[in-house]
């Protein structure tokens, strides 16, 4: 179909719009993007490696970068389930041969990791480059992105410890991805023609077929599952989540959890500041997550006269060793006043 006739079709389907769409039709609207502008934003990498930047990185260098920028959330070996679901684990040598992670069908996996799911290595490169590390996305240079990915591939036992990943050999590594054959588009939830007719899905055909029976549709009602008692109480007091008037009332249930998130204004206190600054990803108020809980920090530092100044420096520049080997990343982007507010709050008991 020619571009012209497609436009006519689009216009006919759009219906509500009466304007004719055409190239450069709207005078004074928009301008040509410069090559530098397109280069600055067009960083996506496709499964066929279109968009992949040149570069390389070793497993060793990747370990350094990973421990500095990634381990605080993902664990040193990408195994951590504390902050995000694990990156590494659940794949076998045999999966690397077949390209299908067997644990996905056998039920042996306690949890799906990134490497049990992902079929395309480009996906991981693209995501690290655009969105990692968590609090400073797009700060990694291509060589370090290759290095981190090389380290992850080594952790997943896909490449050896002396491996160097680069734009030259990434297509070869793709052939070793443990779940590379694990995706199907044979379903009805992508529009357009079926794969057999040049599209990508099955042409929109649903996979279940219920009927609109109205009377005596079955002889018994089989209840497969009811709400467990712990789940009844796990979302706070349901009485407080319904109106105090109208046709129904909320049932009184236990627990103080599920405090309304909308009640807290963006500037309502240090806890919100900690949330907004990403601190709560690794620290709990009363519990360790990746880093120590604020209660532990207060207990250790409360009697030290210079505690506030020392802690403020640690927040700003990062640190390692006081609470174990997982490093605290630097937070250079935070305002000094905000850091001081947080430190004072932590030292006063984080209440």
């Amino acid at each position: 179909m020619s571009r012209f006739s497609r436009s006519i079709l689009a216009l006919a389907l759009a219906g509500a719009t009466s304007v004719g769409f055409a190239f450069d039709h709207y005078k004074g609207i928009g301008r040509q993007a410069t090559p530098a502008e397109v280069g600055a934003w067009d960083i996506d990498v496709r499964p066929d490696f279109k968009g992949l930047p040149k570069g390389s990185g070793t497993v060793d260098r990747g370990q350094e970068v990973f421990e500095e920028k990634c381990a605080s959330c993902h664990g040193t070996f990408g195994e951590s389930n504390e902050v995000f679901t694990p990156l590494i684990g659940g794949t076998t040598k045999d999966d690397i041969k077949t390209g299908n992670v067997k644990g996905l069908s056998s039920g042996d996996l306690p949890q799906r990791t990134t490497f049990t799911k992902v079929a395309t290595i480009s996906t991981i490169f693209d995501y690290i480059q655009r969105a990692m590390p968590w609090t400073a996305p797009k700060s990694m240079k291509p060589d370090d992105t290759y290095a981190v990915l090389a380290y992850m591939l080594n952790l997943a036992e896909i490449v050896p410890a002396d491996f160097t990943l680069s734009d030259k050999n990434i297509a070869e590594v793709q052939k070793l991805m443990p779940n590379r054959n694990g995706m199907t588009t044979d379903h009805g939830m992508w529009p357009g023609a079926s794969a057999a007719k040049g599209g990508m899905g099955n042409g929109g055909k649903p996979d279940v077929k219920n009927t609109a029976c109205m009377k005596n549709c079955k002889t018994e009602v089989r209840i497969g599952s009811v709400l467990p008692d712990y789940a009844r109480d796990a979302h706070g007091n349901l009485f407080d989540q319904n109106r105090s008037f109208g046709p129904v009332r909320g049932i009184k249930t236990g627990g103080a959890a599920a405090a309304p998130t909308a009640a807290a204004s963006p500037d309502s206190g240090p806890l919100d500041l900690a949330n907004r600054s990403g601190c709560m990803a690794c620290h709990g108020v009363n519990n360790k997550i990746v880093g120590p809980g604020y209660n532990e920090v207060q207990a250790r530092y409360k009697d030290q006269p210079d505690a506030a100044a020392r802690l403020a420096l640690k927040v700003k520049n990062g640190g390692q060793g006081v609470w174990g080997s997982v490093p605290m990343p630097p937070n250079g982007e935070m305002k000094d006043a905000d850091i001081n507010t947080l430190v004072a709050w932590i030292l006063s008991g984080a209440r």
Partner: protein
Amino acid sequence: MNQGEIVSMVDIVKQPGRLRRAPENFLSEAEIKAVGEGRRDFLRRSFLTAAGAAMTAPLLARASEGDANILQNPEWTTTLGQPVAVRPYGLPSKHESQLVRRESPGLTRVGAASVSFAPLQGMFGIITPSGLHFERHHQGWYDIDPARHRLMINGSEPAFVKKAKVYNMDELMRLPSVSRIHFIECGANTGLEWGNVAVPTVQYTHGMLSCSEFTGVPLNLLLDDCGVDYRKARFVLAEGADGSSMTRTIPMEMVESGEVLVAYGQNGEMLRPENGYPLRLVVPGVQGVSWVKWLRRIEVGDKPYATKDEAVHYIDLLPNGQHRQYTSVQECKSVITTPSGGQALLDRGFYNVSGLAWSGRGRIKQVDVSFDGGINWQAARIEGPVQNKALTRFNVGWVWDGKPAILQSRAIDDTAYVQPTYGQLRLVRGTKSIYHNNAIQSWKVDENGEVSNVQVL
């Protein structure tokens, strides 16, 4: 009580607004001040004490005379109210604080990559108030400066567009616009319930669902303006301006239909920051993750992109270990919102059973409701006009006789697709899919009036 007293009571009832004098010292000065400030709960207690002690005519009428809320005009009827613009941007009543977005405890561990659910259990009609619209962010939200926001359109190959272009908000808002009402549902809505009942209320089972009137420019108008080669570029990559620079592949077929919008308006005002201010993609019928917020770039290409949220997440695990990739369309679904899980009926008698139905394939044609767990069904009343890929409200009258009941709703769309049962879905997709659970929801009503979440196979 003698005959004369009864007569005088009737006289009082016939003379609305007439008050009998309060006994001396019935209220203290502090209590009078409290009444002026709107506190009335203790007043009833005081009244009961006073009435019980002396049987004198009180400030508030006795129950036998009628409703005190009628016999005694409240302060809002007898004093001066507040002037205009006390709240330059209006707020809900202070009595509505229960109905807010909430998180599901333990669902995620990082608030910047999490979900808050809309309180469907107390909402009416089909439009979601913008402040109650569900949230799903992948790397936190920002309130972006619209003067610094840009939309770029380019091709994966330079030749796929005659001209790669940049638009600012001034320019986008000069273009011909359309306004359309559409639902948005997260692909993982009801995902907690694939294996078994897990959460207590409709806020948590179905609250990743909202519906708004969106205003913006059809994306195909912009693609035409850039001279896109539609023969070669059959896929669109949409990219956000947030830290995650959220990316999703959109089918060109949908863009060509004219339905996909580059939207800036939501319910008559600009988008809320949590919903993508100042610009988001609207992809009617498709799961929410594709409605890229803080939209900054559109790339047209000849292949899908397998981005993180279509290659690691938002993929549907099947029993055979394969994942369905690029599942996009939200199939026909419905849920009864009143009464629903975690609520209790006040008493036996009449109730208006009300709920929502929607389909990513088009319009809702019919909704049936069952009160006996799916043995018998009756057609519900559909509130029109029914709109394409929008929430549709249904209602049906019901007299609760005090006996246990199981309430269900079943929607049918204009492709004749009938919303499936849990048994039918699990037969094909197992229990670990996470995404695209559109099974018939069941609410069990106990003899004590409590409503709870159950699954009927």
